[in-house]
């Protein structure tokens, strides 16, 4: 348990560095789409929601998980589409 936890902590910290590096230089033009695109990615919580709502028996966890599935899906689908809508208007 602890070793996997530490391994995951490594993953977390390294990913944070990647995040810092990737976003370093972005023109202001793209701040809004970038924010909304990143926001869609944070809808990754949908994976967690799927995992906890997977049980066939009804219980509190499954119900909470299903609600989370709905909310996170709205976040993901709405986020990516809205970003695309903004970006398709950036024409040269």
């Amino acid at each position, binding site marked *: 348990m602890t070793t996997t936890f530490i391994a995951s902590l490594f993953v977390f910290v390294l990913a944070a560095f990647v995040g810092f590096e990737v976003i370093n230089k972005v023109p202001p033009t793209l701040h809004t789409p970038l924010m909304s695109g990143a926001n869609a990615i944070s*809808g990754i919580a949908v994976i967690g929601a799927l995992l906890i709502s997977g049980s066939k028996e009804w219980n509190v966890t499954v119900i909470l998980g299903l609600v989370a599935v709905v909310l996170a899906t709205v976040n993901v689908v709405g986020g990516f589409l809205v970003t695309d809508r903004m970006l398709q208007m950036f024409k040269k």
Partner: protein
Amino acid sequence: MTDFLPTGIELTYLVATGLFIFGLKKLGSPATARQGNVWASVGMLLAVVSTLLNQQVLNYQMILVGIAIGAVIGVTAAYKVAMTAMPQMVGLLNGLGGAASALVAIGEFWRLLNAGQGVPLGSTITVILGVLIGGVTLTGSFVAFGKLQGLITGKPVKFPLQQVFNALLLISFLVCSGYLLVTPDNTSIFLAMVGISSVLGIFFVLPIGGGDMPVVISLLNSFSGLAASAAGFVVMNDMLIVAGALVGASGLILTNIMCKAMNRSLPNVLFSAFGSGEVKGGAGGAGGVGDKVVHSIDAEEGAMMLGYARSVVVVPGYGMAVAQAQHTVRELADQLEKLGVEVKYAIHPVAGRMPGHMNVLLAEANVSYDYLYDMDDINPQFDSTDVALVIGANDVVNPAARSNSSSPIYGMPILDVDKAKHAIVIKRSMNAGFAGIENELFYGDKTMMLFGSAKDVVGKLVAEVKQL
């Protein structure tokens, strides 16, 4: 064979992670941004599909119903929202993401409790983090949404001992956390913590002025990433941890860029109740303003000034967004270009209610981004500009930021509109901007005021310019 599926799922997660990183990278450049968004969404699709193949996941019917409901709501919202309402939309979606992460943490905690094998310490800690960050993101985003949508006053809401109150909320949350670590099965304490984190989100955002909402939304965006990471630690899933960390870090960078553009620190944005009207020392620059004369002109005179200029720089602000005037502005620019006038757009990094807000609106009106100039590029050009046309912008063109050291916006980089040969300011009234301070520019000898809603006034200008 039984090992093959979990390994395959993990490898798919790895591919999805790569797609997220490349997608974010591509989102940073105008030419590849749209492609980047598609890559990231493909990554998300891969992650979701491979998770559904997980053998823990059996409850297909209900899950697919849930996904379908979410997708329908998401699609409808994405296509119905007006471009001007984009900041609120991102705020709202952000809140939902935070809520989902918090629910995952709560749900998993419940499962562990009822499994009867005790809850490991590490899990309790990550659940606590998930509940705190997720709860604050949820309610904070909703308050930010309310402020931008005009449901709640945009002014900072203040009451005595506010920061003490907020600190007490946080402390009580920490105390509860301590209890929970000792006695994980104390559900009433746990529910209280869920409540406290939600209340904290509300009172955290309430005292922040509407003008600072972009920074808040960006910060909450970063939080929602961290909430997803926390949920990832709870269910021990690296996909969530990585994606959450990516968003958390990138959100923090964006927040930082925005604060820099306003020449303010993050704590100043969050805790100073900026724009509450209690401006200290405002008398220095604004005091003398009362006696000065405002030059008001009508659309016909304005059109003449614009039509016979050689160069015009358009400075759009939130007023243009509210009036949905971006298409009319473009029409005006087209007419002026027909007359041989060189038209450029000057974009202040925090014009509007979101960074890049103006760029999105002008892009919607088919203005090519070659015509849009960042503050550093356009400022040296104002000296040789005949007319600066300010449309619904206020604080970002206030010369007090350069000259009046007692002004609350002193030191904020501004667009040097006052250096142009003439400035035409389109504004609904003489009211102060979001920062709640007077703007000397409006009383300058070279400044002409054109009062009215941005859309009406620019429409009239178009009609008049056509007749030149």
